[in-house]
């Protein structure tokens, strides 16, 4: 039913995660912004908690569970609520939580039982992007060649999150360049494998607590069993589309990150406004408010809109509704909205928005990545436009 009062279960998750975030992430947010590339040892407390689990595999034809108890919420909705709270504490640190990498999500989604046994407890990063291949993931040039019982990988991967800290990396490579997207497969490469080197770590605008690195694969030989999914190259792009479909689940998560960071900015701004004697009470006509109060209200309304789009996309995933359009809408709106809100808050805060004594300047830097990774805002607009205009990739390029 269309009814948007948050259910008790959601509020419980939110409150629980908020306490964790406020006590464990927020206090060390500045420390690891400054100590770029240092592993936050405090995060070891999260080790052993299985973040990227997976539901029991269903037999063919068996319907997916729908949340039955009206008070209960589904896994995707629970995740976006959790992610928002964690990123309210600190986005870079949330991205550094052990064993919660994108690689872990990929392994949880498609690994065989045997692979899950081998890699399930390892921290897995994800390596897709290359110097010449960003949003156009179908154009990657890293290769994987079968040689006896091994795959031999060659190429270079950039912008790998948790590059230094992870135990293994899920690497995208092509087994057949001629086959285009159909030839792209993913492989688990463990740290310490000869020919697999971490070249360097990047220095970034924000999310500095999260280490981002470049890997070089030089005749890197891995066991044949390390391929995720089928090695067969089909004449269709179904496999690639399947991989891209995981974005329908991860894009609302990035949108939730933007909601979390933007809310942190708004909360600080409200606190400072109230300290200055400006109470926000939602009763005065916006025409009769100060300029900064009006800006604040509009930013807050935008935050609400971002969150509702995010919840909708996650709720649809929980109900097995196809949410490709809604996932991109949440990411497009929240990515840009978060960027603008954190900028606006830093502006409203005046000198307090510039100083590193407060976190507002940091949130402005952190938020920017959320309109970039997991598909830039422009890519999201392309996806939305193709969807609502019913245009193909060749019609709307």
């Amino acid at each position: 039913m269309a009814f948007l009062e948050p259910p008790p279960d959601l509020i419980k998750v939110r409150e629980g995660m908020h306490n964790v975030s406020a006590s464990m992430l927020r206090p060390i947010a500045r420390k690891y912004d400054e100590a770029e590339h240092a592993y936050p040892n405090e995060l070891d407390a999260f080790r052993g908690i299985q973040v990227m689990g997976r539901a029991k595999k269903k037999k063919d034809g068996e319907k997916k569970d729908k949340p039955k108890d009206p008070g209960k919420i589904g896994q995707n909705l629970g995740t976006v609520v959790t992610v928002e709270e964690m990123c309210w504490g600190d986005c870079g640190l949330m991205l550094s939580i052990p064993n919660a990498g994108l690689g872990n999500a990929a392994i949880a989604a498609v690994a065989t039982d045997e692979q899950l046994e081998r890699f399930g407890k390892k921290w897995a990063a994800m390596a897709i992007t290359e110097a010449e291949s960003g949003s156009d993931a179908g154009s990657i040039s890293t290769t994987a060649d079968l040689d006896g019982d091994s795959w031999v990988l060659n190429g270079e991967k950039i912008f790998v999150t948790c590059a230094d800290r992870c135990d293994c990396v899920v690497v995208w490579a092509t087994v057949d360049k001629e086959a285009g997207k159909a030839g792209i497969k993913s492989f688990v490469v463990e740290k310490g494998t000869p020919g697999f080197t971490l070249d360097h770590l990047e220095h970034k605008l924000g999310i500095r607590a999260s280490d981002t690195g470049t890997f070089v694969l030089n005749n890197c030989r891995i066991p044949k069993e390390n391929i995720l999914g089928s090695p067969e190259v089909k004449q269709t792009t179904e496999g690639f589309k399947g991989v891209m479909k995981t974005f329908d689940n991860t894009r609302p998560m990035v949108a939730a990150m933007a909601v979390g960071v933007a809310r942190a900015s708004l909360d600080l701004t409200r606190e400072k406004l109230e300290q200055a004697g400006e109470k926000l009470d939602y009763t005065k006509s916006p025409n009769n408010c100060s300029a900064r109060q009006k800006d604040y209200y509009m930013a807050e309304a935008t935050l609400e809109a971002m969150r509702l789009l995010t919840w909708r996309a996650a709720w649809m995933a929980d109900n097995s509704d196809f949410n490709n359009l809604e996932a991109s809408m949440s990411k497009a709106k929240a990515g840009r909205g978060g960027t603008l809100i954190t900028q606006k808050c830093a502006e409203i805060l005046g000198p307090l928005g510039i100083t590193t004594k407060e976190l507002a300047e940091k949130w402005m830097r952190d938020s920017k990545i959320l309109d970039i990774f997991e598909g830039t805002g422009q890519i999201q607009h392309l996806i939305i436009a193709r969807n609502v205009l019913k245009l193909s990739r060749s019609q709307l390029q």
Partner: protein
Amino acid sequence: MFGFSLTKEQKMVKASFAEVVRDIVAPNAHDMDENREIPADYLEKAWELGACVAAVPGEFGGDGMEYSPMLNAIVLEELAAGDMAFAVAAMLPSIFINPILEMGTDSQKKKYLPASCGEKYQPSTAAVCEPRLDFDAMSLAATATKKNGSYILNGAKCFVPKAASAPNILVAAQLDGKPQLFIVKAGTPGLEVGQREKNIGLYALDTHEITLKDCQIPAEDRLGGEEGCDYARFIQKGRAAVAALAAGECRASFEQARDYAKKRVQFGEPIAYRQSVAFMIAEMAYEVDCIRLLAWKAASALEAGRDATRDAYLAKIYAGETAMKVCDYGVQVLGGHGYIRDYPQERRYRNARGVATWEGIATV
């Protein structure tokens, strides 16, 4: 139960209003706007669907169904997607019926509801807006003073829909520093209904300025009697309603821009093939959803009986700014045709301007 999809009942109600929009409202929206008139039989068609009286108990002439702000928000959006002036006019009786039902005394219900819930559409109305730059719905210039068992009302109101034909006007005025609502009957001495207003939008809806000069009404006509009413809730419901109306207006603007961009060929291909146009349409698509979801969130809070001050305020401020932007894009995508009155985009652009300003013209 939390969720984003409509129930069977919500879908059914939406579909019945969509039918009226398809058959009557949309095809005649242009003429209604140009002629500055909504034919009475069109309003009867919407009245027959019973949305305004659904929650009124059977004894007072209604259907005795559960009161649902969510359902009202869905209806308002659907009608406004056809024409905003029609939507306000068709749902106008509820701006009077709904507060009396929720906050009226027993005798007020007996006295006013049956007459308002008859077979035929009857335009009752509310007077909230005031003709001044610093108008604020929660802090009014119009006043009510208690004197010898009566209330004396003074002040000026504007944008009062159907003030000239409504038998009752629910007037918002400040009593002892707090805004309250008063039922003022047509023809009460001291109540003066001015000429029909000429506004930027909603041409088809007749609105008026009214002035109250020592207008005396009996004490029992204060909404809620001696104890008064929850005026803040009345305003919250109005704000959620305006956001829902904006969602409908913007949806129509988006849909026309989308369809036009696919048909309009320049340089050998539809303009929709260009990112500069396609991205505007993408933005319109999710902004319509943002406005709707914010309206729904406020309506859900009201339905749950929770204080919706913040939700309704944010929904309206967002809808006000965003409706203007979406309907602006709607004109822009159509280029010169968007500017010509033969196409509805220019009307939507004019109508959108009111969203940030209106208070108390509709309710959920």
